[in-house]
């Protein structure tokens, strides 16, 4: 059962009547709806827009982002909605009425968010290391590890097997302690260079690398030279890699 909906991209400050020069989902025009000193950037859509085809889905996400980027460029400060937010007809009210009511109700909160985000952008900082390289480095001067390694060589196969299991667990513990220490150090360093930080979940990467830290940072748009310098220091450590992405619209900082 398909119904018509209004797809929400973002909310911006002021009354804007001009639409955006871009085609949205399904090639629909992207419109602006001014309500109470705020403007919603929307388009007509069919709902649900859910789809099992990965290619179509990722295209939808790319369109969502392209529209938000354009709005961000034109209006400077925006509150982006989560991908796939749609207003529909409910309780005998049209979708436009529902959107209007919601915006009026949330007006103060939205304006507060817009004030807080003015001129700011989000940056992603992801630090990974290569466990194989790190393992060697961390255990090189570890007495307990060394003596266990020597013991393994002097024992029969069965005993050596069990000692190897023990060694693996020991090394893993050492690695976790090291990872924690690095995390704290990097986190403090990044936090000192930006206005706000959120710790995100780490993602799996290809097997040779492991993500230690995944941060979203909020800071004035374009003011990243200090952060960049700090990240450069991390990349100089052997076995460490940094992904530094942005500027993004402040996706991670609108729900607070």
């Amino acid at each position: 059962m398909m119904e018509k909906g209004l797809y929400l991209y973002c909310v911006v400050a002021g009354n804007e009547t001009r639409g955006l020069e871009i085609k949205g989902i399904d090639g629909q025009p992207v419109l602006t709806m001014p309500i109470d000193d705020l403007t919603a950037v929307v388009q007509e859509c069919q709902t649900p827009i859910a789809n099992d085809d990965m290619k179509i889905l990722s295209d939808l996400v790319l369109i969502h982002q392209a529209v938000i980027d354009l709005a961000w460029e034109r209006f400077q400060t925006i509150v982006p909605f989560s991908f796939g937010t749609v207003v529909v007809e409910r309780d005998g009210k049209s979708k436009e009425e529902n959107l209007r009511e919601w915006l009026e109700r949330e007006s103060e909160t939205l304006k507060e968010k817009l004030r807080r985000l003015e001129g700011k952008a989000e940056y992603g900082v992801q630090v990974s290391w290569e466990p194989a390289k790190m393992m060697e480095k961390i255990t090189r001067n570890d007495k307990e590890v060394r003596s266990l390694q020597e013991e393994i060589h002097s024992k029969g196969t069965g005993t050596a097997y069990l000692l190897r299991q023990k060694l693996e667990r020991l090394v893993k513990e050492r690695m976790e302690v090291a990872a924690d220490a690095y995390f704290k150090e990097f986190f403090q360093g990044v936090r000192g260079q930006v206005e706000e930080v959120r710790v995100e979940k780490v993602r799996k990467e290809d097997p040779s690398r492991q993500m230690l830290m995944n941060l979203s940072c909020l800071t004035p748009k374009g003011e990243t030279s200090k952060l960049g310098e700090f990240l450069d220091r991390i990349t100089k450590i052997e076995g460490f890699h940094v992904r530094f992405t942005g500027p993004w619209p402040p996706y991670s900082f609108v729900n607070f």
Partner: protein
Amino acid sequence: MKLEIDNDDLKHGLLGLVMGIVEIVRDTLRIQSVKRMESGTLTGVQIEKLGNALIELDRTIDKIKEEQGIAEAVRSVRDGLDDLVNRMVDTVADPAGVRKMGEESAFSRKIAGGKR
């Protein structure tokens, strides 16, 4: 050992699941064996026997995985279970999905080193 199952998908799914569980049992046995060894209650001979039994178990598991071509299926069963456990732990430990610095570092993932 040969299982005659015609449908490949079914075979992979079912055998992958069974073998994944067998591997988890094996991992538990390993951990317990190391603990017993460390506790000092076993003789050298007993430790050697225990280790050899585990080696034999590893070989058998690897052989079956190879013969049946289910290494990938087992891996995905185990990854799936790992994810499930991680999600459950996250949900219980962190109901609002808020992670604060200081409680515990965000680093709670397995160190991907060596073979499991």
